[in-house]
């Protein structure tokens, strides 16, 4: 069966520090991968999606970047965090050609 992991679970970082959040998927090959951000009391905002290694599409201009160095690994990064980067970050995957997405447990990021 397929499993999706995210780490860390929580993170407190100072403004201006770098960020690296990791997401890995097990039990499937060539998944579509997604990064979402959820602000308190709001829905999910799609940040990036990837349909293959090295292929990244950005949905909104922002202070963040994403990379997919391996088929089942998706990384969210920032060189310098802003206060507005605080939120709940969710990684998700879907099988190619399938509409349903499967979410990881999320990373709660607090930038102080």
């Amino acid at each position: 069966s397929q499993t999706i992991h995210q780490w860390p679970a929580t993170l407190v970082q100072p403004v201006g520090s770098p960020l690296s959040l990791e997401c890995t998927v097990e039990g499937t090959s060539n998944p579509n991968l997604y990064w979402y951000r959820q602000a308190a009391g709001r829905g999910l905002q799609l940040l990036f999606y990837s349909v293959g290694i090295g292929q990244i599409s950005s949905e909104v201009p922002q202070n963040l970047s994403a990379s997919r160095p391996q088929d089942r690994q998706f990384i969210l990064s920032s060189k310098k965090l802003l206060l507005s980067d605080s939120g709940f970050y969710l990684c998700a995957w879907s099988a190619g050609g399938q509409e349903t997405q499967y979410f990881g447990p999320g990373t709660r990021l607090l930038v102080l």
Partner: protein
Amino acid sequence: SQQGEEDPQALSIQEGENATMNCSYKTSINNLQWYRQNSGRGLVHLILIRSNEREKHSGRLRVTLDTSKKSSSLLITASRAADTASYFCATDPGSGYSTLTFGKGTMLLVSP
């Protein structure tokens, strides 16, 4: 930008009662999905309804879709305390990459 808008924002009911949540959207869709999120956790897919379907059932869940009104509803029958969670609708334009657009969600509280 938010595509789906759920209504109500919050709903409080007693165990055994039915819960109905509504979702409105603005643009054409290939399918509409409902997800559930327990507090501080990732989202779990509940049900998908395609644009050529009007109603779908899964256990205690019943989803309707009216593409002429660009609206959907999720009915949870005989609710349980364990149904307490936030419920989100997500629209899929059918781009092939499952780029879902989520609403802000309805927070459901089911009291014993």
